[in-house]
């Protein structure tokens, strides 16, 4: 029964299907890599700078570490940061967007101004400055940092939706029956926006993964775990380009790209499913 429901949803949007497939493939890759690993991702297990072979699927880096395992763990950690930062950003976005759309008036104007200001600021440079102040750089602080910078897009989307929902009849009914503003938002408005919230989260997650990679490349990545961005950083620091070690450069960046693409496709696909439009020709 669930299968047929799932199929009918997916049939409405090819993009959703492709996005999910890519995303799940990446997760599978990571799971396989982690499960079959006989050692940790940062352990030296072999000779350095080995190209891919049947034993070392992605070769080794300049520390003699198995890149297949490294990348698998990197995916896991990058996704974790993506999810955490995405949740934080989505949450802040919902709070600000829903409040602005619902209250309207001066509250809306102030929040809108605030949103627009944060939106205009160049994100990565700001992250770099603030990130440089962090004494401890673990995945939690980084996720928090990314999350509190990237929420404006979600806030805008949620505000627009709240605004349009606010004027519908069922809201008035609830209002008459005496629900407080907060109850109205939680019980009436948010459930109807679930699709938009999920879509926003997908976008935020994709953006967060790219942001983390950027921070890692510049040297402000997490100090205690492997992420795809950190692998790229090591590749850069250890002159992987000059040494022609494409197996160190291609996989992490490609997976970062594909993760972001798949999340974007999921976002587009969800839009096609929830907001179908007449096909023209």
């Amino acid at each position, binding site marked *: 029964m669930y299968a047929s429901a799932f199929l009918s949803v997916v049939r409405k949007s090819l993009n959703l299907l492709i996005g999910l497939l890519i995303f799940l493939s990446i997760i599978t890759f990571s799971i396989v890599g982690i499960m079959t690993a006989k050692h940790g991702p940062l352990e030296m297990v072999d000779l350095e700078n080995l190209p891919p072979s049947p034993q070392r699927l992605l070769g080794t880096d300049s520390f003699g570490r198995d890149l297949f395992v490294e990348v698998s763990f990197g995916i896991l950690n990058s996704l974790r940061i993506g999810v955490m930062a995405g949740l934080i950003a989505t949450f802040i976005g919902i709070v600000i967007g829903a409040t602005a759309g619902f209250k309207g008036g001066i509250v809306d104007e102030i929040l809108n*101004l605030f949103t*627009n*200001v*944060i939106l*205009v*600021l*160049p*994100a*990565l*440079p*700001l*992250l*770099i*400055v*603030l990130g*440089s*102040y*962090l*004494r401890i750089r673990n995945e939690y602080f980084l996720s928090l940092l990314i999350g509190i910078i990237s929420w404006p897009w979600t806030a805008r989307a949620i505000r627009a939706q709240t605004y349009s929902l606010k004027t519908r009849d069922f809201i008035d009914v609830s209002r008459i029956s005496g629900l407080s503003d907060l109850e109205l938002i939680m019980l009436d408005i948010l459930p109807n926006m679930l699709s938009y919230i999920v879509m926003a989260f997908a976008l935020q997650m*994709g953006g967060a993964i*790219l942001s983390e*990679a*950027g921070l890692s*490349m*510049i*040297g*402000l990545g997490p100090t205690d775990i492997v992420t795809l961005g950190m692998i*790229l950083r090591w*590749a*850069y620091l250890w002159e*992987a*380009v*000059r040494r*022609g070690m*494409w197996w160190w*450069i*291609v996989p*992490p*960046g490609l997976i*970062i*790209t594909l993760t*972001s*693409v798949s999340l*974007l*496709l999921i976002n587009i696909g969800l839009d096609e499913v929830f907001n179908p439009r007449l096909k*023209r020709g």
Partner: protein
Amino acid sequence: MRKKFTSPIYIFLLRKVGFYVLCFFVATFLIWAIPRLMPGDPIRMFVSQIYSSIGSGGPVPEKTKLLYEYYVKKFNLDKPYYIQYFTYLQSIITFDFSTSIAFYPAKVIDLVKMALPWSLALLIPAEIVGWIIGNYLGALAAYSRREKINNVALYAFLFISQTPYYWLALMLAYIFAFQFHIFPFGGGYSWGVTPSLTLSFILDVVWHYVLPFLSLVLVIIGGQAIGMREMVIYELGSEYMYYGKSLGVKDSKLTKWAFRNAILPQVTGLALSIGSAVGGQVVTEAVFGYPGIGTLIYTGVLREDYPLIQGGFTILLITTLIANFVIDILYVYIDPRIRRAYLGE
């Protein structure tokens, strides 16, 4: 005289300038306040760490003590917060970002002044070229009658728009520098060459410029193409297109109609693109060791040179804000409806 200053366009300009000035203050406040609110105030720690991080060779006690006192005084660390902030604001306005640690005794503002032209030389052409080509390709994809081209184009553009600039940089360096030896691995110009206004130097610079430029431009093209394709598709299905057709307007003219209407929101998209590109450029420059603000910031992060990081950021901030402002004004002139509303022509 009075009428002129209350006219819509002046109010618009005033509001815009006010907005961007607000953005500037919010951003500079954030980077000033946040470290001071964090446990183990990084600035204090930074200052007290000067003992161990200046130049090469052991620190000379008197010199470092002097430097320490210099920074305490400069940041007013011994005074209450509001005075500190005021001093900070003053310094920002006068572009006094104090002295760099990594490049001691160079002043940050001088380092930034040298690096800025390089960065702008990369950013501005990349944005303009990327925007033009991207929108053109996006329109082509949208006009294509064949569904397959349309879809393949969408996925191709989507993919390239999501590639991190710096990863593309590494890839391009691998392909064109390592494999094919066409372009250099990095730097703004070749080692041991002294900058001069000769043709050979300029060519050398251009030769070093290509890969960083491509790293930026390709991603920008991808992003713009997706947006434009969507806008054109939307316009093509609009009622006014069908109506025009129903009165005998030919396809060539209709195409122009759709294009003109679709390009408008893309101008706004240019502003957004700049915000993202400025960030990506920082890391891309670092990857290539290209002598722009990005490499400065990279070194700053490496050496915990806070004045340098903040100085670099502030300049990037100003660049972004100015670019956004210029585009806002441009848009008023380009969109005939806005032009009518604000200038009443």
